[in-house]
Structure formats: C-alpha cells, structure tokens
C-alpha cells in the first residue's frame, strides 16, 4: 500500500544553517501527489508545498522541494534556517483518484540561535 517515511524524528539546527528534511514514499500509482505540511505549536497543520510533477522544483516561503519519482523522494530544503521555522513538518502522499492522504510520522525541526 501507500506509505511515507520520514526517517528523522528530530532535527536540531543552528540559525543560518541549511535545512534538509528527508521524505521517501511508496506507491504503485503514477498519479501521486506529494505534500509538505507544517504544524506550528497551537495552530492547525497547513500546506507548505505540493507537487505531482517529476523533477520540477516547487518553492514557497523560502522552502523548496523536488519530486524525484526515480528515487521516490520529496525532500524539503531551505538555504538558511530561521528561528521561526521551528515546527513539526509532515510529508504526505495522496492520489487524486481516492482523496486519501498518507502522512509520515513527522519531523520536529528545532532551530536554535
């Protein structure tokens, strides 16, 4: 079945350093959407990025990710971490045809001064 793996449960960084959060997925379907959701404390999870196009870079709010179907990956990156980036980040997978989302376990990003 469909699944998403985020191997890091916690990533701690110093402000200004680059961010990379790993996401790999499994699906037998070619029409998958990959998402990154960000969940700040005491707020609702909200969409950060999404993509269904192979090898196309998607950017939003300083973050970017590229869907690589050959390696089933959709890693989230940012060139320079900010204190305000501290949050829980979820990678997720969905197929247009069935409208279910499969979430990874999440990666807690902590950015320190």
């Amino acid at each position: 079945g469909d699944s998403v793996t985020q191997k890091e449960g916690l990533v701690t960084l110093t402000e200004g350093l680059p961010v990379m959060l790993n996401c790999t997925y499994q699906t037998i379907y070619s029409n998958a959407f990959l998402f990154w959701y960000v969940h700040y404390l005491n707020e609702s999870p909200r969409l950060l990025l999404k993509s269904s196009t192979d090898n196309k870079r998607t950017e939003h709010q300083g973050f970017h990710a590229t869907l690589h179907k050959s390696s089933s990956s959709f890693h989230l990156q940012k060139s320079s971490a900010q204190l305000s980036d501290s949050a829980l980040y979820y990678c997720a997978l969905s197929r247009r045809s069935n409208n279910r989302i499969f979430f990874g376990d999440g990666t807690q990003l902590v950015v320190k001064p």
Partner: protein
Amino acid sequence: EAAVTQSPRNKVAVTGGKVTLSCNQTNNHNNMYWYRQDTGHGLRLIHYSYGAGSTEKGDIPDGYKASRPSQENFSLILELATPSQTSVYFCASGDLGRNSDYTFGSGTRLLVI
C-alpha cells in the same frame, strides 16, 4: 472565508463515557477526515467520508464511530472512551479531484481520565 471549525477545543471525559467531537466546514468539499496526533506517530487517519451519508474506516478505526449527516458536518464519536484515546484530534476537508487542497481545523485536545 472558507474554514474548518472544530468543537470543543478542549474536552475532559471520564473513562466509559460517550464523547462526540464535531467538525464543520464551509469549503464545500466532498471529503472530510478525522485524524489523531500523538508524539512519535504523526497524524493517523481514524475515519473519513466522501460525502453526506458516507463514512469509511481509516487506519485506526477501533473504538471510534463517525457520522456525516450533511456536506458541512462530520462528527467523531467515542461510545466508550478510554484513557488510550487521550490525544489531539484534527478534522480536515479536501477535494484533490477538484484541485482543492486539504485544510485542517484547529484541533480538539481530549483527555480521558
């Protein structure tokens, strides 16, 4: 503004009691979802619905029921609450088939004592 509203925001229930969590959406989305969020497990799907009158089991449905009486409303029901159901519950709506992204409510924090 389109939104997903959950009630109550916080709930304390006694073991064996009945709990109903409510969700209302003004996005006119066909699909609605109930997730629970626990540390180390991310967002896990409990029940979902494709439209009024429909409910489907998600990945962890045991101990929960769902009801979708209308397009706008989707309830999660714990007939006999247990301490293991202490968690944060999120409702979401979405319709990827119509290019509408998933949006989440603010969450309900449930404590079962």
